[in-house]
């Protein structure tokens, strides 16, 4: 569909800029409270889609790819997965089983940092999903913009 009417994007942009920080805070809230309330790494992470799309709507494709480098996201995703495996291996290193919760000494039930390894695992999963979903969304936006996605950097 050809758009004949020129729109001033300032309203869109202001709206996005207003919501974007809230969205990001919400993501981190959900990830960090994964062990306390419904939610967790994945549920928080998928909200990244919304963030990427908001950025795209407000600032356009070029600005989005400038802010979120595809390669950096890719690298961070690998790091997050590696960190997850490392956390799981800590169980073995401490003389117990793989994935064993060995940091479970701090905090009382209901506190933010109260679940030991699980907290950190949530964080790594969150990071992994943020980056993963983020790069998928970026790719799709790239396709939408007729970019050569095969060589996206």
């Amino acid at each position, binding site marked *: 569909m050809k758009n004949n009417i020129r729109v001033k994007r300032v309203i869109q942009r202001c709206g996005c800029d207003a919501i974007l920080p809230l969205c990001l805070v919400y993501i981190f809230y959900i990830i960090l409270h994964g062990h306390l309330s419904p939610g967790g790494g994945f549920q928080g992470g998928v909200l990244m889609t919304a963030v990427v799309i908001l950025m795209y709507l407000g600032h356009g494709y070029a600005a989005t790819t400038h802010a979120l480098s595809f390669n950096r996201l*890719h*690298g961070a*995703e*690998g*790091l997050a*997965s*590696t960190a997850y*495996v490392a956390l*799981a*291996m800590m*169980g*073995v*290193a*401490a*003389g*117990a*089983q*793989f*994935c*064993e*919760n060995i940091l479970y000494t701090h905090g009382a039930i209901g506190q933010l940092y109260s679940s030991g390894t699980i907290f950190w695992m949530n964080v790594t999963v969150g990071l992994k999903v943020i980056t993963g979903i983020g790069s998928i969304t970026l790719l799709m936006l790239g396709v939408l913009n007729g970019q050569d996605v*095969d060589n996206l950097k």
Partner: protein
Amino acid sequence: MSPVINALSYQHFPIYAIMVLFLGAFLIAVFGRNRTARNVLALLSITASLAFILALIRPVMLGGEIIAYWLGGRVPAGGYAIGIALEVDALSLFFALIVAVAVFVSGVYSIQYMRHDDNEREYYTLFLMLAGGVMGLVLSGDLFNMFIMVEVLTFAAVALTAFRNTATGALEAAFKYLVVGCIGSTCILVGTAMLYAQAHTLNLAQLAQLLPGNLNTATKVAFALLFVGFGTKAFIVPFHPLAADAHGAAPASISVMISGVLTKSGIYGIIRLTYFLFQTMNLGTMQFLLVFVGSLSMFICVTMALAQHDFKRLLAFHSISQIGYVLTAVGLCTALGVSAGLYHAMNHTLFKGLLFLAAGAVLHETGTTDLGKLGGLSKKMPHTTVLFLIGAFSISGIPPFNGFASKWMVYQATYQKAVESGNIGFLLVTIIALVTSVLTLASFVKVSQSVFFGQLPKELEHVKEVSFGMRLAMGIFALLCILTGLFPGLVTSYITEPAARAVFSVAQYISAMGFDASGVAAESVVSFAHVGVWEPISWLLILCIALLAITIVAVASKYDNVSQRSGEAVDTKYELFYGGEAQEFSQVGGGDLFWGFKHNWRGYFDFMYRLHSGVVNDYALWAVVDLALVMLFSLIVL
């Protein structure tokens, strides 16, 4: 116990074997930009995985121990499994061994083979994810974990099939595979959910304790769903067209993984499902199902292979044909049958891997796998030719290669079963198996004539032998093909018989996880007695003596009084005989080499050609129909 000693205890090795593969994948995603780092990481992780699996042979295969490993130390509470478990018995380890070896060789091959592709980082990430997925599947003791791993490996396999997405049909094959593979995965998921609803556990051992004897409609439907789900992973009929598409389009190293490793995961799932979860293999009808599907795969795929014009596609059909042997033998529910089936599964990975790698080498050097365009490569690629011939002889069951050793056991097992049960149907299976074998030989004669022998087309004059790394990978497979063929006694007694014994000791499997196995019949007496005799070493010795004698006589009588054209000297006696006509390029080969055979079966071949229409809807329809039939079967029979 100090943490270090704990960390080195072999109890942890299964999870290590899985995790090093995934870790390698993740690290390559981070550091894989550099070629050296990438290759080192990939090689390290596959070698480590292989080493961990090999280290497990002693306690598990030879010691008969069953490793029960609860992730996070969540041992069962109140008689219910609450954690995720790995459970490694000899059967799991057997398949893990196959996987580890195939992954290792395929990885070694990839380094040279994929050198000219871009996006190598993604390739290795996906490759290791695929390997990790299969490894996780076979070592897992948890049904839902198996589903996850099935998804991981399907995903990686689909992505890798489409990896060379500019090649003809790669995307198409990937899409078809994705659609039908996802139908299969959904089947597994729904089946798992229904079993959970009935038994409130996902642990395989506990399911094996609870399910038999408590079958109701829901669990029967779940059986059908799981069977079809794992069937799609093993590509048994009616899912064989997908295998053909996927193998043909994927890079050769991935074809090795798909045919040697992915199909095994499906077979593993079916064994776990029928022998362990439902323990219905003692039913004659259940044996009928497996043997029927196996024989059908065996025969349909070998005839389809005879009609193919593409090297890799032909190999793909053969792959499923051999899987048919495995399924048939496993479905017999005799110790010899299971042992033979597992032996053949192992051999299948070896020789099929070798053949796919040889096809990859041809593709790498010539840029095509079309049988009609190749020819005469034996002069240009002598090593590849020899390696290919070893693979071809193995798969067609020429003594003393490994295919013969296992096929021979399959025949013994089927015929023995026929005699024991008095059922003439099993006799038919023996005959089908023997005929399939010679048809396999025929199609490999076709390949060797069309690709390696005959005349060299002009376009292929520049072809060179492949690099050492690729030949090394093929050499490993070839060596294993010969060794496992020459020492069938060692292989059966140390590898396949412990695994086959594990198949028949469900009670130990359950109690090793800490559940009550009193309701399950204890291990029955298992006998691996053969009827026939076959001593490959003695045979080879005699053959060598005879060959030596003949050669001595031949040399003495000037057999080597050979004249071949040297240099540019022109003498018409060295030209081929053309009945007096002018010499011109005339290669006899290609897809229709055996028209004398096909002519008699033209109705059948036409029908099959129309059936394999290539439309994804048709394949999906086959899946749905298969699901409906198996569901009907299980509702009536179980």
